[in-house]
């Protein structure tokens, strides 16, 4: 694969990572924040695969499987916590969670 293509993929993954990070900071909906974390993790997956292809090394692709499993576990736990919060306060956004401050 050409080098330019790889650079393109790396740039794309950096952009995706940035979109996820900024989205997490500006969006107030808990579900969207969860999706932003997923976006960041998958952007990193793309980086791993691209580096694996550039280095002609299998590790970069194997890592993706580990990350996918971790991301799945994170979603399960995150949704569980969001449901627990939503049951107490339906429609809560991040701004409504302000019992703890100081």
């Amino acid at each position, binding site marked *: 694969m050409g080098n330019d293509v790889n650079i393109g993929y790396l740039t794309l993954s950096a952009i995706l990572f940035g979109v996820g990070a900024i989205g997490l900071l500006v969006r107030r909906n808990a579900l969207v924040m969860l999706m932003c974390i997923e976006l960041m993790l998958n952007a990193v997956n793309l980086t*791993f695969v691209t580096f694996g292809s550039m280095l002609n090394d299998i590790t970069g692709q194997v890592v993706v499987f*580990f990350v996918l499993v971790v991301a799945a576990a994170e979603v399960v736990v995150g949704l569980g916590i969001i449901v627990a919060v939503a049951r107490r306060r339906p429609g809560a956004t991040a701004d409504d969670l302000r019992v*703890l401050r100081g």
Partner: protein
Amino acid sequence: MSSLAVVLAQAPQTTVINLAPGAGTPAADPNAPIPTPPVLWAALLPILVLGIGGLVLLTISSLLKKGAPRGFYTLYTVMVAGLSMAAAVPLWAKVNGWTKIAWWDFRDLWWQSLPTEAGPFSTLGQAIGVDGLSVFLILLICIAVILGSLLSDDFLLREGLEGPETYALLLFSACGGVIMAMADDLIVLFLGLETLSIAVYVLAASHLKRAQSQEAGLKYFVLGGFSSAFFLYGIAMLYGATGTTNLVAMKDFLSRSIPANNALLLIGFALLLVGFAFKVAAVPFHAWSPDVYDGAPTPSVAFMASGVKAAGFAGLVRVFVVAFGQYAADWQPIVYALAVLSLVVGSVLAIVQNNVKRTLAYSSVSHVGFILIAVEAATPAGIQAVLFYLASYTFMVVGSFGVVTLVGRVGDGRHSLDDYKGLGRTNPLLAAIFTVFLLAQAGVPFTAGFVAKFYAVIAAVDAGSTVLAVIAMISATIAAFLYLRIIVAMYMTDSDGRSASPVSRAERIRIPFATGLSLLLCVLTTVGVGLLPGPLTELSAKGTPSLVREPARTATDGGLTVGTTGTEAAPGQSQQQG
């Protein structure tokens, strides 16, 4: 973005050299069996005991129809953690070259499966390393689990939340922490970090009757996921720069070749440090910690402040001080800044808090600053100081939160400074115990806290960071004020001037057996280590980390060949000054 593209355009020329043993694509016969690394099960035993212990606990609890007898879950958790410690003792002996400790001779156990020569070793394709650091931290994390589960016992009964969940989560989280302590591969480190964190997110949200607890869980989860993503991106950058995720191979690569353009490497360092700084709650990545400590169930906070931090520092020391010791000049300034900020911000913000749990959260941030100045030294003495600090801090902080658990009373909500007024009169014993822990955290002589701070400052001065040591001592003085503020509230004020009236039953707090046992252990250790620091100092001196290459295997039998083990010493004389 364009500068990044320029950096990356030059990356392949410098990184295509692949020196990682085992990594890379073996251009072999595609029909040949995939080579699998030898597994030393004895070395993995501490991890397996904790993980399987948690699963078995969940299975048992679902089979018991009438619920478990009182105290069963706590006893079980303590036993599993104890077993894990017992499984770590032969490893400790192997690393130090002993064949028996006291009356316990290991040679008839699974000893045969371990490598023949003494010293640190690695297994599973050098993804798991057994050395002084990892065994020391296995013991420490298991102690944190034992103390935390003892605190949880009466707490869960009092709050009406009895069940196996807290204990199973403690075990899973400890399992992740132990994986982190043993990881010689960045991906294994990441998996350990996530196992640890995901269990702790749930622990933080596990008080179903308090809205604050779920809020704490959600905040911890969102910010934790955010920082994990940064951590992973850092691993990806280091992989791109060196062609491997294995720390041993990475260190080999970096000592043999200097990347012409090491921007990828430096970005990787910075992103990894963000991840670690978040996990140990160093300023400016500490924002979650007061909220989470305030909202989460208090016994879980005790584990978060001890076990989770210990695992985080294990990873930090192994990755930066040991594997990237050669690049100390590049990462030391960042750790320096983190240390100064944590010390100053932690101790100053702790003073203005009115909630004792929040105060302790900020004080733990300033303790992190102290440990970071020992990390910044990047010397063997610094690592020893880190381990000593972590060990003594575990007992101090679990003890403090143990007292807070009791004073919080039913509902786990009475944590304001006003609730501590007159505690010296109503509950003299509890107030006296709390005073010991607070003085120890302040660093008063004849307590463990003093010795720990002493070693950290000495390590910093020896490494030439005198300014850092001075800042640390000034902030310790500021922090002393906040501990004294709580002590003054307990002894010298009374909420409504009833000092003459007899103490009513409602004011008296009963100390339950399990909590009392945990507090007793913490007090004895805190004072004992302060009076006799020798044994713990020796132990932490033996906790040296090292990255060991796995011996090459002969092609025929897959057995181990002797003599190819290359031991990389802990960073020492060849350290470059920043």
